[in-house]
């Protein structure tokens, strides 16, 4: 605890402690499905960060793919009924 206080008195570069980083990394770990399925606490910080990058890249790819399909479907899409179904599913 005292080391944290000491570090905060120094200039900006060391204001962020390793504890804080480890904390945030473990929080990220919970969000990523790959790591959640394995036993947690086994993954190192670098592994979690790597998986995070891959996960976000995959999500970007999915958005791209879905928007491709949606654009093809755009003519026949009835936005009102789609909206109704979505809101109904969210309220359930």
């Amino acid at each position: 605890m005292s080391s944290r206080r000491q570090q905060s008195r120094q200039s900006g570069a060391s204001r962020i402690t390793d504890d804080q980083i480890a904390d945030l990394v473990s929080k990220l770990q919970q969000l990523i499905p790959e790591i959640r399925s394995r036993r947690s606490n086994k993954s190192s910080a670098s592994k979690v960060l790597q998986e995070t990058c891959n996960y976000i890249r995959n999500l970007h790819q999915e958005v791209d793919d879905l928007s491709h399909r949606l654009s093809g479907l755009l003519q026949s899409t009835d936005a009102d009924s789609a909206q109704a179904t979505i809101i109904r599913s969210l309220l359930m």
Partner: protein
Amino acid sequence: MSSLSQNPKKTLLFSAMKNPNTLKKKLASRFLKAMKKLKYKMSPSPPASIAEKKRRHRAVRAAAYASMASAVGPRRAWSRALLRKMKGRKRARRNPGNMNTRFGLNHLCDIVPGGEAMDSCSLLNETAHYIKCLVAQVQIMREILHSSSSSSTIL
């Protein structure tokens, strides 16, 4: 509800632990509005050329990210960076001293919008929120696809 609006810091904290459904509803309504707009802009006939198909694809994808960024608003650094990019403004200042390489975050700061201007702590926070919003956006787009394909109109 009124106490939340009076204390801005509390509002920030609550929005961080937001009920995922409110976020999803907001995202959904904005995205559907954007899709409606796109639909009216386009010609009613199916796209003739490949270039036209590409243009529509890019328009839908841009609408997805735009509705994400505007639904979250200026509350998050990544949404601010996305909004700035859409409006064509300059990027925010880069991270001076560049502490990101210290923790091996150099790939992450390239992926998360606005990442290069953040310190390591904020970058990890922003990443978590960004992932949540991306997941919600993907779910919404899938639901739209399923609902319109199940109630399929045969052209």
